């Protein structure tokens, strides 16, 4: 139930953020600095989520089949594969490496 609460708060915040663009005076949001922070933060968050999902295991670092998924995903992206193909490649790489005995 607790998780439901955080989900709904996060959904509410997501909508209020979008709506703020339509109601908050443009001067406040239009500052180049605000736009830059929103953009650089997006890069930082997505990078961190990639890293955490690839090598974090609770509070320790683990080097397992997920690293293979990271490498395979990067190759697929480099070859300009569409998003869904990239995800499937990542999943296949992790599953395949586990079959080969690398957990």
């Amino acid at each position: 139930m607790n998780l439901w609460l955080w989900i709904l708060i996060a959904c509410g915040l997501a909508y209020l953020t979008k709506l703020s663009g339509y109601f908050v005076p443009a001067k406040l949001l239009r500052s180049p600095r605000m736009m830059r922070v929103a953009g650089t933060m997006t890069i930082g968050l997505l990078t961190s989520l990639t890293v955490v999902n690839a090598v974090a295991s609770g509070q320790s670092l683990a080097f397992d089949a997920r690293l293979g998924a990271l490498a395979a995903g990067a190759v697929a992206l480099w070859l300009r594969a569409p998003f869904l193909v990239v995800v499937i490649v990542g999943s296949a790489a992790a599953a395949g490496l586990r079959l080969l005995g690398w957990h």
Partner: protein
Amino acid sequence: MKLLESPAVKVGLSVSIATGLYGISFGALASASGFSFWQTMAFSLLMFSGGSQFAFIGVVAGGGSGIAAMTAAALLGLRNGIYGMQMNALLRPRGWLRYPQAHITIDESTATASGQRNPDEQRRGFWTAGLGIFVLWNIFTAVGALAGDALGDPKQWGLDGAAVAAFLGLLWPRLKGREPWAIAAAAALATIVAVPFVPAGVPILVAAVVAGAIGWFSHGRSDEGMEPDVDPYPHGHPSTGASSRERNAE
């Protein structure tokens, strides 16, 4: 003019299909991470912002708390506020229309509208992409959630590897040029250093602060990191010859 002859509607529809389809991966990953069917649907119906949705389930899947997941999702959604401001200036919605319009203000609808010159076309592009993605994203989220439930052990199918690839895929279009790579390197380093010292989920917030500080204190492009996951105009735009990214930089 017939609606289907409008270039903006055509672009909006193709972006809808490309973006909507990857709702499958969100649905499957959410259910593999332990979210119920209706929790998974709540994200796609109510949050409706791909990056934030993946962020929330990614933090929880890594053992993070609900509040850390909520914070990561909220920070990742900040750019939608900027898009809202841009779309408010561009499309000038009146009265109640702003409320539904705000909900479908995301990377792809904004990019589709911004790529058009004519105000009517901008409006058609925005609504076609926004509503099209909303409908397809939710349908495919449901398909993915049901499929994910049926799969059984997520690790056997490599779904944790799918999550890694998904985040890399969301990051990739934003890594054009030297600066975003430098920001990404700093964020990756901050994450790895933080993992052993703080609870799961918090390293992501540490990296957000580091990246935000870089943006605050350095000077560079004001639209760094604001690229759509699916570029509506990958081959350049007929009237300008520039891709969305180049046009945004003008």
